[in-house]
């Protein structure tokens, strides 16, 4: 059912209502219901948590490279410290950096703009979801201050380690961690419902399903995937909380429970979760690639259907995290098969992206560098997953650094490379100014090169038998064979270099917000609706009236046009 419009250029829904007087500073920036402000709040909170995640990995990698020595900025890393740092790094990066930035920040900021409406359909619930998210971040950080310190049972929180204080030695931290994660889930459920309902119902007149930009589709599919998979883990989290605090035995065999149930509940969510963050990253890359190669996406519908297919398949692969947990070998067969199968749709999307580049008029601006780097680095992550998806080889590789290097070659592109692409690409729209290209390129190379020097050594270390979550390798002679410690040092020093170069980005970003050269409305000459709004968009987004849509988002270099782009809202 379409809304009818009366005039071709703008819909009969008039100017957004702005007849209330301008609210004060606090109302505008801390109590706003405007999706752009809420998106920025998520972004800055995510960036701050990224600093926390980066600091934790710095501290524990210094311990691994120079065992027993005092780490500048932390002191001596004890064994309990190490566990807490590792747990915090993993949890923070996934739940408080990747998800909020990719889905909540970019989704909030871009969705209403890209579908041509003035805000989300539930602005106050939107605000509530951010506030719950902020509280969850504070609860997690607060766990560092309680007796025993932050939770040290790894981000996977397996019982009985996570359930019994005599094992994890961080009883208060364990419950606070669980509470923080649960609160964050509620925030994302609320946010996800907001996004999905908005995109389903509030699109601009004329915007059919296949006119929606891919990044919006991806965020929606990711939100649905999250909603459909988090339920069992919420149930599990309640059970684990009871085990920790009330002495129940849901996961305790001595009381009639089963620890393997937690593993299943966790990974049933945990695997779709990685696609929840992967799909928006792929979406961002699609947007940047098309704009900077002046070419339409090679196969829009293919990308869309494979994304949906990936989402569906992601429900059928979870036990590949449990190959050596003692599961029924017949299950291992099935899950190996499905895991190898799921690489096909993801590879399909990669091929479409490469085909989009082919023959395009490529401009290597900073966002484009990041988008191309995403493809290259994610490829390495993807192919190394094959060794882990096959149950046979996984028996050797499970819990070694090979796994870790694999998922960092996928997660780092997802959580950082695509995010840098997004931030540099949409910065002019968000702030009305341009970032420095020079600083951008310095930051780019200063991130990508060290990144590879961190994780390629870790592949080799894993293949040679290094286990994960070991505090001090000098205790294990097999891990101290020729060259192994050197690889650890190389990885750590490269990490320090990578972290140092992030300063370049922070300077570029915050300096340009206030002092960068002013940006025109559409500096990249792109088609999608967000570039129609002023830079930065005011409250209500489109002061000249909400746009109508006349074509798809990727009509670049169309033969019937003089210009090499064709905005969606231009009639005729």
């Amino acid at each position: 059912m379409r809304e009818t419009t009366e005039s071709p250029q703008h819909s009969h829904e008039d100017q957004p209502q702005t007849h209330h007087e301008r609210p004060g500073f606090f109302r505008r920036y801390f109590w706003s219901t405007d999706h752009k402000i809420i998106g920025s709040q998520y972004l800055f909170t995510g960036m701050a948590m990224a600093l926390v995640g980066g600091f934790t990995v710095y501290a524990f990698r210094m311990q691994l490279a120079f065992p027993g020595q005092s780490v500048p900025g932390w002191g001596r890393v004890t064994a309990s410290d190490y566990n807490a740092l590792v747990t915090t790094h993993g949890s923070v990066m996934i739940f408080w950096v990747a998800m909020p930035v990719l889905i909540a920040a970019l989704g909030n900021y871009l969705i209403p703009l890209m579908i041509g409406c003035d805000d989300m359909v539930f602005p106050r619930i939107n605000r509530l979801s951010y506030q719950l998210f902020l509280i969850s971040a504070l609860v997690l950080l607060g766990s560092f201050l309680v007796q025993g310190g932050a939770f040290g049972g790894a981000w996977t929180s397996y019982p009985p380690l996570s359930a019994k204080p005599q094992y994890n030695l961080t009883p208060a931290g364990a419950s606070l961690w669980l509470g923080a994660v649960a609160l964050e889930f509620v925030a994302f459920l609320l946010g996800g419902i907001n996004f999905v309902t908005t995109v389903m119902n509030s699109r601009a007149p004329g915007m059919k399903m296949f006119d929606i930009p891919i990044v919006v589709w991806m965020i929606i599919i990711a939100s649905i995937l999250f909603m459909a998979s988090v339920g069992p883990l919420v149930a599990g989290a309640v059970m684990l909380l009871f085990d920790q605090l009330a002495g129940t035995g849901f996961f305790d065999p001595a009381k009639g429970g089963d620890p393997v149930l937690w593993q299943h509940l966790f990974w049933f969510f945990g695997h779709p979760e990685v696609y929840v963050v992967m799909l928006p990253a792929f979406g961002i890359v699609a947007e940047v690639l098309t704009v900077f190669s002046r070419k339409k996406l090679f196969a829009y519908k293919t990308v869309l259907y494979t994304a949906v297919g990936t989402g569906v398949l992601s429900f059928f692969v979870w036990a590949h995290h449990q190959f050596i947990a003692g599961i029924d070998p017949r299950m291992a067969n099935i899950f190996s098969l499905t895991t190898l199968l799921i690489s096909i749709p993801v590879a399909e999307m990669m091929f479409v992206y490469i085909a989009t580049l082919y023959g395009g008029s490529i401009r290597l601006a900073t966002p484009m560098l990041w988008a191309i780097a995403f493809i290259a680095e994610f490829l390495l992550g993807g192919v190394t997953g094959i060794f882990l998806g096959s149950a046979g080889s996984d028996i050797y590789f499970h819990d070694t650094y090979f796994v870790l290097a694999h998922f960092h070659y996928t997660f780092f592109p997802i959580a950082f490379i695509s995010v840098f692409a997004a931030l540099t690409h949409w910065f002019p729209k968000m702030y009305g100014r341009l970032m420095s290209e020079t600083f951008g390129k310095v930051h780019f190379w200063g991130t990508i090169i060290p990144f590879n020097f961190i994780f390629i050594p870790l592949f080799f270390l894993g293949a040679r038998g290094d286990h994960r979550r070991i505090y001090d390798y000098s205790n294990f002679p097999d891990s101290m064979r020729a060259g192994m410690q050197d690889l650890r040092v190389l990885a750590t020093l490269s990490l320090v270099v990578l972290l140092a170069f992030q300063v370049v980005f922070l300077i570029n970003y915050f300096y340009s917000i206030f002092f960068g050269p002013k940006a025109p409305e559409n500096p990249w000459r792109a088609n999608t609706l967000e570039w129609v709004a002023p830079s930065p968009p005011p409250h209500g987004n489109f002061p000249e009236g909400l746009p109508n849509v006349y074509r798809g988002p990727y009509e670049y270099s169309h033969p019937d046009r003089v210009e090499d782009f064709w905005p969606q809202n231009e009639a005729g």
Partner: protein
Amino acid sequence: MSTRPIATTRAVTGIPTGRLAVWWIIASEIVIFGGVLGSYIMHRLGHPEWAHQSIHTNTWAGAFNTLVLLTSSLCAVLAHQAAEEGDGKKAARFLYLTVLGGLTFLTVKGFEWRSEIHHGYTLTSNTFWSFYYMAAGLHGLHVIAGMVLMLFVAADARQGRELQRVENVGLYWHFVDIVWIFLFPLLYIAK
């Protein structure tokens, strides 16, 4: 507070936005309760040594509560009917009856739990009781949330405002009823 955005007035799918959102909420709650109930079923079938504890639940209390919730669902749908006719005051009255049903449900449950705890069946007695209190407790929290929401909606409806919310809150309430329809045999009949 601020005026509603234009986005809220659009309905490309043909389903009004509020109702669409409630269906998504129900969808996500299905997997949450499904996780709880699925875990319970699997555990119970694999652990005969505590499964038989289920014999101690009070079937009559459970059955009475089922009837109470069914009746309250009836009141909710009658409230919806009144709202469709534009009669906000009538809708509010039916909503208050629904809330009363919820209160009755919780009161009976309160007595039930008191008696069970008095007999020594607590959260930690064994895993059956852990599941029992957890699942029924989670359901009870949803009942309370539903009651609170209904009071807000009824307050508006009485003044003829936001009548479409009567149906939406009713949908949520029916879902909570359906969860209980499955909890009842799982906890009270399967012995």
